[in-house]
């Protein structure tokens, strides 16, 4: 069985030293191993942003797609071969900005895909502009006088859109994140893992220290029932001195793959391409 190191590649990450992406990478490799997966069984689809290069750092099938479009590519792959464990990765700009439409629609479909969002609250690869999760008032290169919109809340959006596994991790706590990712993979259905990721270069507000002080794990201070949607909603809007991490919500509902009638028997990719007979189909045109 593969262990975390089997998911390493020889390529050295180009991220800034100290970047939260390293913690996510470690957690991901661990989670893949914990899930009992082999590299050839895993397909990682990334978008464009600092996170995007992650497909090169995990030894697994990779598809480094385009900005904001992780999920439709991942969906196509999953429907074509649902035996692949598909992990979609996105940045906050990628996933909650330009790609937010796909995000909403993917959740209502409930495909068995795990989505990890490297949420650093900035457009980092393009040198630090505001992102949809940037806090109101923040000054960035594109908003020198401060952001004037309220940030999107991926967790409440996910709750509103039918996601069946909703969690939040912290790049500064890889073991906990590893568990969340592994649970997301184990979950049958769409799993969101929103990851609080410090960007040491462009985000001087939501730093490692900022999060270290504020994050807590759901359930650590008393019972938390992740199947209670109203409770989940209340925690999802919590953002201040205390920031919840962990499994926010979980629900069981048939996956999309379960309901697509033509892939029940076998993955689509195994259907023969050669020798299709259209003569019966032709009859309707006579």
């Amino acid at each position, binding site marked *: 069985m593969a262990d975390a190191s089997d998911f390493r590649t020889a390529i050295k990450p180009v991220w800034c030293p100290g970047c939260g992406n390293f913690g996510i990478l470690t957690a991901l490799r661990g989670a893949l191993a914990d899930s009992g997966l082999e590299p050839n069984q895993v397909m990682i689809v990334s978008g464009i942003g600092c996170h995007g290069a992650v497909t090169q750092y995990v030894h697994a099938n990779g598809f480094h797609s385009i900005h904001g479009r992780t999920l439709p590519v991942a969906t196509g792959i999953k429907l074509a071969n649902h035996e692949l464990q598909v992990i979609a990765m996105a940045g906050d700009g990628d996933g909650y900005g330009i790609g937010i439409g796909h995000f909403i*629609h993917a959740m209502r479909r409930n495909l068995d895909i795990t989505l990890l969002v490297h949420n650093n609250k900035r457009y980092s690869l393009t040198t630090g502009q505001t992102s949809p999760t940037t806090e109101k008032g923040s000054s960035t290169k594109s908003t020198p006088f401060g952001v004037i919109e309220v940030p999107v809340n991926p967790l409440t959006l996910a709750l509103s859109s039918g996601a069946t596994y909703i969690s939040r991790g912290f790049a500064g706590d890889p073991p906990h994140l590893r568990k969340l990712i592994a649970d997301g993979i184990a979950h049958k259905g769409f799993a969101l893992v929103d990851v609080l990721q410090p960007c040491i270069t462009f985000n001087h507000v939501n730093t490692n220290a900022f999060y270290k002080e504020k994050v807590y794990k759901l359930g650590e201070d008393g019972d938390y029932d992740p199947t209670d949607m109203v409770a989940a909603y209340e925690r999802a809007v919590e953002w201040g001195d205390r920031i919840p991490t962990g499994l926010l919500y979980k629900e069981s509902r048939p996956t999309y793959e379960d309901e697509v009638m033509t892939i029940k028997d076998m993955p689509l990719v195994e259907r023969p391409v050669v020798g299709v007979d259209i003569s019966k189909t032709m009859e309707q045109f006579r």
Partner: protein
Amino acid sequence: MIGGEAGFGIMASGLMVTKTFSRGGLHVFDTIEYPSLIRGGHNTYLVRTADREVHAHTGYIDMLVALNEETIHLHKEEMSQTGCIIFDGKEEPEGRFGVHADISLFPIPLTEMIKSLGGKPIMRNTAALGATIALIGYDITILEGLMSDMFQHKGDKMVLDNIRIVRAGYDFMMDNHPGGSGMIVNPLDDSRKPVLTGNDAVGLGALAAGCKFYSAYPMTPASGLLHFLAAEEKNHNLVVKQTEDELAAVLMAIGASHAGVRAMTATSGGGFSLMTESLGLAAMTETPLVIMEGQRPGPSTGLATRTEQGDLRFVMHAAQGDFPRVVMAPGDVKECFWAAGQAFNLAEKYQIPVIILTDKFLTENHRTVEGFNAMTIDRGLLLDPEEMDVHSDYKRYEITESGVSPRVLPGHTNGIYNANSNEHDEYGVDQEDPGNRTAMMDKRMRKLEHILEELEEPVLYGPVESDVTLISWGSTKGPILEAMMLLEQNNIRVNFLQILYLLPFHAEQVARIMNNAGRTICVENNKGAQLAGVIRERTGLAVDEKLLKYSGRMFTPGEIAGGVMEMIGHG
């Protein structure tokens, strides 16, 4: 032609007429015109039939079934000299709607008749169909057979009700006008030719080519393909997915294709705009991709349900950077079928995006075809698991002479790689080095040369020697073939160069033909004479004349013949 207000059921009865003829072994071509509205606008369904192949509508009407008076007024100018009009009424009105005296009027009290038979008002069509059959002396049992096949799934009562009404219309005319209209149409044989639209043909071609994944967002005139394939989902074990937008439609197809399934999407120009970025993704990751683009008049929403050929340059150049792609434009329903099959083969063999460029005229009008032969499948350099077992240093983007690198489907231990939208090395890893970049660009673009070699050279219809060479692409083929007959009748020697492949382009062959030609006339259903531009870019040769139409309607053969005669000063 059947005409009336949208919502009168014109589409359904038009198709009945078409199939009644085709079941009698006749050749049929039909033309459907409707505005971009669900109700309230004027719809027409024009059926043309003959005992030889018919490629287009003629532009004049022999028999008009007018479900309202407006139809008569809108179309009376198009009536042929000895045509006839069937209309809902008891008798010829005073003034005969102002139509020419040579035109016969056949009143039939449709509304009353339906009411007395207890039918729904929409069944006026059905009675009119029977009346039509009577007037042309055609075999009514063919129509009755068709009715029973079509309504069978709604139960016997439905079948009988419909047949009763057809008969009523038929009998009325036989009783009141036993001499018929003077026009006679006889069945030829019982070959029951299939009648397909271009959408149907592309769909059938895709099925035959082993396409298993179709993701799309509805858009006229490509929606018909979505509907057809969705209905076939179970029969052919497809996944058909209506997506949230065209971005997702093309990206899902790319994902599915990457995972090894023959996948396709289709749209019109507006949706293709949204697919633009992903074309480049397919090219850079070398993922096979098939897209049908059904043109309609732009810019922007334009005339959503009409026809035009305005997107040639757009699909040739969509997306940033230079990369290989194929653009093919089938000219008729039969070619649609083969184009779909070939598109999948080329897409997989060369690991590139292939665009099938059609338009409203081609995708939505019906035409009889003979059956189709079996399709050849070529998946190109696709390594099977056994071949991969022995691979120890697999390079997905290996630089080869042909530009094509052996492909593997995700899942094999030895075939792990990174499909990458960034410029990359042979393994798929990010690589910014200038030398690598140049080599990769060369590798990818090299494919085009090899593709061109394998594509069939352009076809010249008609005599090799001619006074006039018509040059065109796509759906104008039908009207042009018909126009050639008209021109020949006028003793004009004409041939027709059909450009099926727009990219890559057979520059040498086209130049050779043009250099040997008399007067060259480029016929295009657009404003920009886009093919003429492509020809000049590729060959340096300017066509002598351009015959363009961009009213949102297709040329009639007569318009082409007339235009040509004017251009060559033939009076």
